């Protein structure tokens, strides 16, 4: 062990004297995290997510509610789940009681409950319940916007029915019929059309606005029963529960009509959700670069005769390999800790509240990344090829593993590929600690996957390094 520690100390001293390596490992990632933190916070130019898991419970008998569910199914942004699989593999309809545990277990991060009283009796508008694990702020806003879009685009009659019902209850049948006639008259006076047809439309919950569109082709007028432009891509459609209504914003008009009881199941106490995810992703990507560069140094040590010198001493090949592995873990642990500390300073990420578990995940992630770096050294024929190969693979793994943007922004097949990457599982580990505040026991499955990746990749790397006679 003393020999391994001496070799690790040698690698650390060598690293610390190399200013370029230190800069690339610590300062560059911090600078980029800072810059991209701003970028991700201020600009959202995505084209929309796909395949977001969405649990749906429909307890309403209103036909429009079923139409709403169908609309959600038709939306590629969602992967709608309406059934629950029993232990005997039979299925039954999902219930509201299932949702919290399923979200907590990560089966999906969002769920909608359409209650029996979807048309409110106590006021104007609809009543929906949304459950969420909004570990990604952009994604959460998009989901809320997409739900509103689905309502306004596909079942606006629900809102009309609500208005009709409430008004009839308050005014009485005779006065309300008189009101509808008056309203239809006013609409047709202003925009043209048949007053009787407009009145029938109003009474069926259609708001009578179809007549407006036909009679008033002025492009500056927007139909109120079509989604607002901002709601199409989800940006700016803040849920009523998280953002105060702005009187002049069209979407806020609908927000007042649709009462959403929003409950965040996971990550309630996280102060900076976007930064929590961003720092984890970038940190793991730069760790991969750092350990890959470190492993590529194998070629330098071989070409300069250092392996000859080391192996002519009482040092075994196994000691050389394990010292490099241990060095990678130490380097990774320090790098990840430093970057999360920077995240704490810049964005207020709660690092110290979960320090123990965070360090455990960092150590396992560092081990997995180091094994990957050693595999690159084992597969590449020379240092240049190792650098090229590692750059390519790190970029691909970072993109598909979710380091740059939420995985739900990618096609589903790429999301599946991403789950085979070190980046994905490392980020899952960070999210479990920093988002969900998971206990060590709850982290074990993720740690197991990271340890499995490490063991498998190291086995291949060691076999290849010996096979290619790296040490001769």
């Amino acid at each position, binding site marked *: 062990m*003393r*020999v391994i520690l*001496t*070799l690790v*100390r*040698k690698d650390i*001293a*060598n690293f610390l*004297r*190399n200013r370029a390596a230190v800069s690339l490992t610590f300062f560059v990632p911090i600078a980029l995290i800072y810059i991209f933190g701003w970028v991700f916070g201020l600009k959202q130019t995505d084209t929309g997510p796909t395949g977001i898991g969405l649990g749906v419970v429909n307890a309403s008998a209103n036909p429009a509610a079923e139409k709403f569910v169908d609309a959600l199914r038709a939306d590629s942004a969602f992967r709608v789940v309406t059934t629950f699989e029993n232990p005997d593999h039979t299925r039954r309809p999902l219930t509201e009681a299932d949702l919290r545990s399923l979200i907590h277990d990560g089966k999906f991060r969002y769920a909608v409950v359409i209650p029996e009283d979807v048309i409110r009796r106590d006021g104007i508008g609809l009543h929906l319940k949304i459950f969420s694990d909004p570990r990604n702020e952009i994604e959460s806003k998009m989901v809320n916007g997409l739900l509103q879009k689905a309502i306004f685009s596909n079942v606006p009659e629900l809102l009309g029915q609500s208005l009709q019902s409430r008004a009839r209850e308050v005014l009485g049948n005779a006065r309300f019929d008189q009101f509808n006639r008056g309203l239809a008259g006013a609409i047709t006076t202003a925009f043209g059309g048949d007053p009787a047809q407009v009145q029938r439309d109003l009474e069926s919950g259609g708001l009578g606005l179809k007549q407006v569109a036909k009679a008033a082709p002025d492009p500056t007028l927007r139909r109120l029963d079509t989604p607002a432009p901002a709601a199409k891509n989800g940006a700016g459609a803040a849920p009523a529960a998280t953002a105060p209504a702005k009187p002049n914003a069209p979407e806020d008009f609908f927000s007042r009509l649709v009462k959403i009881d929003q409950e965040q199941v996971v990550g309630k106490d996280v102060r900076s959700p976007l930064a929590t995810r961003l720092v984890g992703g970038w940190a793991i990507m730069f760790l991969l670069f750092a350990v890959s560069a470190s492993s590529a140094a194998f070629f330098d040590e071989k*070409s*300069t*005769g*250092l392996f*000859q*010198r*080391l*192996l*002519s*001493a*009482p*040092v*075994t*090949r196994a000691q050389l390999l394990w010292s490099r592995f241990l060095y990678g873990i130490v380097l990774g642990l320090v790098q990840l800790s430093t970057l999360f500390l920077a995240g704490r300073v810049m964005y207020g990420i709660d690092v110290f509240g979960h320090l123990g578990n965070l360090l455990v995940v960092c150590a396992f992630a560092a081990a997995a990344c180091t094994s990957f770096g050693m595999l690159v050294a084992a597969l590449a024929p020379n240092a240049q090829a190792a650098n090229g190969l590692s750059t390519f693979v790190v970029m691909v793994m970072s993109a598909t593993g979710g380091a740059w943007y939420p995985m739900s922004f990618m096609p589903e097949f790429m999301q599946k590929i991403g789950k085979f990457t070190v980046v994905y599982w490392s980020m899952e580990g960070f999210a479990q600690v920093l988002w969900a505040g998971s206990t060590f026991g709850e982290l074990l499955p993720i740690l197991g996957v990271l340890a499995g990746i490490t063991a498998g990749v190291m086995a291949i790397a060691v076999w290849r390094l010996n096979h290619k006679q790296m*040490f*001769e």
Partner: protein
Amino acid sequence: MLSLRSVTKRYGALTALDGVSLDIARGEFFGLLGPNGAGKSTLMSLAAGLRSPDAGALTVDEVVVSPADPAGRVALGLVPQSIALYEELSAEQNLRIFGELYGLRGALLRDRINEGLAAVQLAERRRDQVKNFSGGMQRRLNLIAALLHRPKLLLCDEPTVGVDPQSRNAIFDYLAQLNRDGLTIIYSTHYMEEATRLCSRIGIIDHGRIHALGTLDELLTRLPFEEEISFPATPETSPLAAQLAGDGVLLTADGRHRFQPRADFRLSAFYARAEALGLPPRLFTAARPTLEAVFLHLTGRNLRE
């Protein structure tokens, strides 16, 4: 100290060492002389335990040396052909790491580092990064790094490649002193001057085989002539050069001919021909043959090929 018995080492289709047998006694300064690709570095790497032979046996101090047995390498010190140092680290940091790998610690290691650096005149530069050293200084440090643990056998694989004359002399003097102090040294080189100057016994190696083994005088007795004659390679001397064909070997390099006569060729005949062609005696220099002549005689090719 070092014993090789019918050692063979192959790299694919290439046989780098072909049944080599060799014994090197304690306290010897043994030179391994051969051109590039002759098998010198392979023999050194086997002796250092970096590789295993495909056939035969190799022992150092009667202990089998192999990659699988790190303890067997404690008696060895290897000076690799390349400068095997961490150039970002200081001279002292490098020596500390290599010393610790041999189990040296504390005051003992500190003393050994101080002694080593002083011996090669690098004490003043101990805290400088190796990358800021001249090639000669790096070579000297490369040597010291192999000596901290006081090995019984020092393997020097062409340790003066690219070194300025001053540093080369310093290295030679230091090695000679170490040898006088009892250290066994194996020194591989393709410079016959180095082998001639340093080594008490020389092995001539080519194509993976030891062609001759002995002291310089013993090797020279293998030549069929006692003197070789050199003269300028000019149009004026070309008729003489043409007449010498068949009477021995005529080498031409650097604007001069070197004539190595056959055993039965009398030098008086050479001078008679020169006189007949009107060439003055001042053009000709007779000299004792060198190791290069021995190498050429034994292998049929030049050391620098």
